[in-house]
């Protein structure tokens, strides 16, 4: 029977955004944007580049002669974004990405042009900045370039320059979303949990059983095609006592024990919590058994923790390879 793949949603995000210090050249640039002005830098060969860099992109020579450019400019290349990305594209409506050559600059800069549609875009068209009303020292302080007003550029900043301190840092929010799939081997393992089973795998040419399986024998790279059910009872091969509270929403009250447990029939110790015993009585070789949730599902949390079986400890030789 074909089953739907097990998919988990996953977001890559740093809360609050990455805080970046900008250095002298971009400080000049972002401070300029905040004040409604565009600054470039003179390169070693005399050309003016925007945004400015600290070093010449061709020769790595140190730069530092800043030149105010624009505000008017000319579109040198463009493409149309018909479907803006929510939370990413700041205009929130269709727009053009363009390489704009500000007057007085020799190399174009990438920014956006706000016009009604792609038919309003052309190479060579004249544009001027439309400034954001609230400027903080960020690339979108220049909200967009727009077609130049009749009679020439007007794009001076509405409130001119300020005496506020120079911009020294920016915060860049980033969020990426993923749908991660478990893969064939791990899906079998997860579905096994729903049936109260722990399913490992091994390669045809090896007796090493891996739990949870990832699809290949990490020693040889050979596919693990043989399914092996292992016991939910095993031996503690190593452990630590956790005394720091609040490490995870799932963590029990401190002190508690995180252990590596070699399940009977498996060759890879796996991670489990140990409960039902004073944390300081846990020891290597102790025999433990999984405690399952009442309704197991295809979820690694189907096993809550492990508790001692009360059997005599396993002899050291039986697990020393894993300790």
């Amino acid at each position, binding site marked *: 029977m074909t089953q739907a*793949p097990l998919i988990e949603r996953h977001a890559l995000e740093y809360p609050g955004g990455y805080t970046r210090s900008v250095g002298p050249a971009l400080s000049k640039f972002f401070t300029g944007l905040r004040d409604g002005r565009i600054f470039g830098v003179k390169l070693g060969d005399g050309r003016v580049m925007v945004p400015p860099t600290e070093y010449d992109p*061709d020769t790595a020579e140190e730069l530092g002669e800043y030149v105010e450019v624009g505000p008017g400019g000319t579109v040198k290349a463009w493409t149309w974004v018909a479907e803006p990305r929510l939370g*990413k594209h700041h205009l929130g409506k269709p727009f053009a990405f363009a390489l704009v050559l500000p007057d007085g600059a020799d*190399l174009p800069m*990438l920014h956006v042009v706000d016009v009604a549609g792609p038919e309003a875009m052309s190479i060579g068209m004249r544009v001027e900045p439309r400034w954001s009303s609230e400027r903080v020292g*960020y690339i979108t302080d220049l909200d967009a370039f727009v077609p130049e007003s009749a009679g020439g550029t007007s794009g001076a900043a509405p409130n001119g320059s300020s005496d506020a301190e120079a911009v020294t840092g920016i915060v860049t929010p980033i969020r990426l979303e993923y749908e*991660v*799939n478990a893969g*064939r081997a791990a899906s079998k393992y997860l579905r096994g949990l729903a049936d109260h089973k722990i399913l490992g795998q091994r390669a045809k040419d090896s007796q090493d059983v891996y739990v949870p399986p990832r699809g290949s024998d990490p020693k*040889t790279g050979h596919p693990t095609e043989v399914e092996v059910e292992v016991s939910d009872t095993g031996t503690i091969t190593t452990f630590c006592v956790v005394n720091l509270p609040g490490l995870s929403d799932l963590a029990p009250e401190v002190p508690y024990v995180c252990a590596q447990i070699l399940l009977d029939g498996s060759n890879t110790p796996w991670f489990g919590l140990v409960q039902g015993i004073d944390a300081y009585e846990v020891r290597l070789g102790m025999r433990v058994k999984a405690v399952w949730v009442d309704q197991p599902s295809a979820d690694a949390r189907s096993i809550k923790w492990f508790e001692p079986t009360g059997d005599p400890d396993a002899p050291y030789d039986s697990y020393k390879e894993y300790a």
Partner: protein
Amino acid sequence: MRDVAVVGFAQSTARKDRERNEVEFISPVVQVAVERSGIAKADIGFTISGSCDYLSGGPFTFVQGLDAAGAWPPIRESHVEMDAAWALYEAWVAIQTGEVDSALIYGFGKSSLGDVHEIMTLQYDPYTVAPLWPSMVDMAALQASVFLDASGRTERDLAEVAARCRKAGLGNEFAIESEDVSPEALLERPVTHAPLRDSDIPPVTDGASAMVIAADDVARRASSRPAWIRGIDHRIEPQHIGARDLAASVSTRKAGERAGANGSFDVAELHSAFSHEELILRDALGINGTDVNPSGGPLVANALMSAGLTRIGEVATRISEGRADRGLAHATQGPCLQQNLVCVLEGE
């Protein structure tokens, strides 16, 4: 210099592989490449991979790829956060040092886990470019805009490249998109990222490829017709796209000169993910009259982080099978053809 040859290659692609994890789709490709090389896995001196952690959204996920290669007893290993063509370069250098005689190279990436066009934005300047969120397609479209304006070429020229590649893809079992279509018919389709149409843009592709290379007599013993790497070089341009001449690829031209990419070739495989890139690369390498991208190229299957290595593998396979004597392969990395690698391969 030691003579180094490609002696084994394999690849795999999928539009959206939701069933297998990375290890499960790399592992068979590695096994096949090693089998084809005729060199025992335990005898391979060096293993190196190319991938990008952002594709799967987790730090150090490339390390998991090692499970597909097998790392016990401990192996000599390395990784590049780049297309695996650059892993091949490092492996080639490792062989030149005399430390090893053979190497396994693999590249992999599941582009379908997130919105890959958006994920690739994170490779741009994080201060003034990435916060505006141009996608990898937007960046390519800007280069196409510059190129058409500067060269006098037209959307018709792009459509001819796209139609030829899509047709060639019909003969490639690893093609994700292919069709027998005329340039005229493609021009009827809507422009989606001006001046590009969807046929000028590569399909999102999950995939992996693997290669074994070997030196001198090891290669001769392993393969009846090794594909010898006669020259290999790579060059990079500034990140600031305004500082580059986007209408030409100076780095490709220089890498080509250093790799000895002159004279005639039976086949060329170019890592031209977008139609206009093929035209820019042809100009940079002076390609004329050569069969370009007979596989259909990246326009029919573009597995990020392995598509560049696959170009070299496609040429090597044609040489080893006796279908070509001399071939040219190219790989690229970064927005708007920022970094380019050129490799010249020959049979004996």
